[in-house]
């Protein structure tokens, strides 16, 4: 195990995920960790995840974790409990991971919709925003409802309302009512206009065949053969470079934010090596609207705030 002190349940979860992978059991993180990922940031001493297996298979899985050195406790829910069973896993520092199975109303397809978020260089799978909101509304406590509201408010990508309504219906009439209340709240708080590209404001995104490199103060900040070219209305074309091909260690996040009704909320980075000239030199739509979803996980550079943006470099 990679934990070395208390307060490291997320690290413990990485070990748990490794064993789940060996056992071919799918999972999706829920609870406070998922709430945080979706914007309702808080602390928790444990990590929670749902498993793709049923209650009967859980005792076999418990043995695997025991063999791997975990302290385990398996508890089954009674007839009325919306949770079928919980397998609690602990290390020697009281870090804890709770694995939940048999959630009443839970859609098994949720595992195929899960969202990957990297931690410590490893991907962790989280329930999708829609599954998270539906589950929170089903849980129904004041904090749960508040979490659902925040998740919808913070979400900048379009939420799949059809899916969300379908999921809420699985949890019953109370959850459906709760969802409509929360959506009413979201409509009131998110008054930013959303526009779709069309003949009066066309947007076209296409792959860039050539290699693209970006340099600042002699240092290469980006180097890719997978750039995209975005052509929008009468604006000059913009090259978007995959985040994986940008040296993020040379970038510094800033608090600057802008909004485009066609693409969504825009976040910025400075490049310290370029000093004043490179402040907010890089922008990205982390959760772009559906019309431009291709530029998710891509970054663009202002040509006048870097030394070169070279296209077709050898």
């Amino acid at each position, binding site marked *: 195990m990679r934990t070395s002190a208390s307060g490291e349940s997320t690290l413990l979860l990485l070990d748990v995920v490794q064993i789940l992978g060996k056992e071919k059991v799918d999972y999706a993180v829920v609870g406070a960790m998922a709430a945080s990922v979706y*914007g309702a940031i808080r602390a928790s001493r444990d990590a929670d995840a749902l498993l793709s297996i049923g209650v009967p298979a859980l005792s076999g899985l418990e043995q695997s974790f025991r063999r791997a050195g975990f302290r385990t406790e398996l508890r089954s829910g009674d007839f009325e409990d919306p949770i079928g069973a919980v397998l609690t896993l602990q290390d020697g520092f009281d870090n804890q991971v709770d694995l939940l199975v048999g959630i009443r109303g839970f859609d098994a397809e949720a595992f195929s919709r899960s969202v990957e978020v990297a931690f410590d260089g490893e991907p962790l799978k989280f329930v999708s925003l829609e599954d998270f909101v539906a589950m929170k509304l089903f849980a129904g406590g004041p904090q749960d409802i508040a979490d659902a509201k925040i998740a919808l408010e913070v979400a900048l990508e379009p939420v799949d309302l059809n899916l969300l309504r379908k999921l809420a219906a699985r949890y019953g009439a109370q959850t459906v009512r709760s969802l409509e209340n929360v959506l009413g709240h979201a409509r009131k708080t998110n008054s930013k206009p959303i526009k779709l590209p069309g003949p009066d404001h066309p947007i076209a995104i296409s792959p860039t065949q050539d290699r693209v490199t970006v340099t600042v103060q002699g240092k290469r900040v980006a180097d890719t053969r997978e750039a995209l070219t975005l052509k929008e209305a009468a604006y000059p074309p913009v090259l978007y470079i995959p985040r994986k091909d940008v040296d993020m260690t040379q970038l510094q996040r800033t608090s600057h934010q802008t909004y485009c009704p066609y693409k969504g909320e825009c976040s910025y980075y400075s490049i310290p090596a370029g000093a004043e000239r490179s402040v907010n030199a890089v922008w990205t739509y982390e959760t772009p609207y559906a019309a431009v979803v291709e530029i998710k996980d891509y970054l663009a550079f202002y040509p006048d705030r870097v030394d070169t943006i070279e296209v077709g470099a050898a």
Partner: protein
Amino acid sequence: MYNGGTVKSKLADHSRKTLVEAAKRQTREERLRTFVRHSKLVTGLAEAGKRVRAKTRVAG
């Protein structure tokens, strides 16, 4: 300070908006790292509290 919506307070509402705006500026990865740091701090505080209570009992 967070107001889940059950009590009306302008101060709490302002605090909530600030938190939401801060969360909007972060990527999911950054929020996860914030969660981890926050959880570690809270766990550290809880552990320290336990140690102080244990010492107090011994002294008492």
